[in-house]
């Protein structure tokens, strides 16, 4: 290694430690006056950029209807087997909808495969990173928790259109 020197290769000044110690002290002293980037978490919150993969949510189109057609691709591709979809028929134009759509948040690994594979752009990763449960059964998110109005997801959808 070029950075490491053996003791016999050190110069006299390096060998008496003191100048090197002063160098180290100077470094920490300059660090003390540097502004830090700490966020006071519960009061100040981190707003992630659009590329952030938070918890997956279902897009709720205008008119309170989910985009999902219950094709089951997301459930198929999910490497952690976190998604469960049950399809059913509907009178609407798209003919199919999920009766049951559940994501087990204890299993989800936030890989974003579901979002990538979705043909309808119906499941996307949100910016929500605060996932707390007191029971395991609480960790299974049903449609009530998964459906998010499209207005709240514009950032991510635009990101997907540009970069996916």
């Amino acid at each position, binding site marked *: 290694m070029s950075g490491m020197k053996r003791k016999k290769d050190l110069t006299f000044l390096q060998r008496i430690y003191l100048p090197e110690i002063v160098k180290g*002290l100077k*470094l*920490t002293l300059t660090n003390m006056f540097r502004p830090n980037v700490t966020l006071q978490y519960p009061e100040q919150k981190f707003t992630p950029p659009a590329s952030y993969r938070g918890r997956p949510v279902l897009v709720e189109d205008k008119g309170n209807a989910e985009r999902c057609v219950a094709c089951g691709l997301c459930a198929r591709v999910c490497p952690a087997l976190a998604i469960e979809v049950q399809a059913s028929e509907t009178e609407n134009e798209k003919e199919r909808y999920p009766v049951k759509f559940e994501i087990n948040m204890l299993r989800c690994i936030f890989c974003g495969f579901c979002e990538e594979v979705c043909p309808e752009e119906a499941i996307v990763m949100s910016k929500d990173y605060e996932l707390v449960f007191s029971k395991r059964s609480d960790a299974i998110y049903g449609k009530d928790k998964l459906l998010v109005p499209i207005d709240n997801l514009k950032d991510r959808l635009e990101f997907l259109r540009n970069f996916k």
Partner: protein
Amino acid sequence: MSIMEIVVITLIKIVAILSVFLLSVAYSVYFERKIASWAQNRVGPNRVGWNGLLQPFADVFKLLLKEDIVPEASNKPLHTLAPFIALLVAFSTYAVIPFGPEVELFGYKINLVVADVNIGILYVLAFTSIAVYGITFAGWSSGSKYSLLGGIRSSAQMISYEVSMGFSVGGVILLAESLSPVKIVEAQHGWMWNAIIQPIGFITFLVSSFAETNRLPFDLPEAEPELVGGYHTEYSSMKFAGFFLAEYANMIISSALITTLYLGGWQNPLVDIFHIQGGWAVAMQVGAFMIKIALLLFFFIWVRWSLPRFRYDQLMNLGWKVMFPLALLNIIWVAVLIMVFKI
């Protein structure tokens, strides 16, 4: 002054010093954490009270409420005694350190030192040697190999560095021609600070006091990564707090001692330059003493968060092959100053 008056005045001084001392020990823990966080671009304690100023009290309450675990394999009397030795030494050394000049208050002449002992420096050296027992007992009586290693390391380290510490004090004593801290401070009038006259002795004493207080870069007795905390591994609750507080008390004692011996104690050159007299002069001198101690404390903490730990053989090499000859060299230097230049 009658005996009664002397006793009362001394008691008042003890209470005043002890309360200020305990408070500064508590707050040096707080400042250690704050300065550490500044050095590492963090914020540090800021939840308890304004900017975390009540943190020391929260810490003490937490430690008081913890369960006090005494290991089965320990030697119980010694295990209990050790933190008390550490605390006793840390708190009693302060008695001989003068924090101000002689003042006249309500018609009494009061010396701003608890005990003006004419062998004060010997007293301090003797007591800091006893501090080794606190740590060694703690290591040995815990009945744990890590604690034992920590205790043995500390005894070897402290004895080695005490030699160079004693020899560097020799230079100071030669110049002041007295063992009394009060006389030593008076001998450093104006800018005649020992740190300026005998810089080598100052450096050796400074380094030795780092080793004596077990602070980084010489904190081998504690060495978390290798010894799981060293001599206090098996301590919990208030007994652990005893060692913790003793370490910080020792830091303050060392700072006070360095100030007294090398940085002119309460001497404030500004007082002479602007011819200030009376109460203001005393206040400025006591203030100067406090500021010097505070700066040295900052230095102690600053060094801790900048430097890595020495390896054990490096520590011993430094102690015996570098610090000891330097301390001897310093004595020769002072002797030459006295004989040739007649300081």
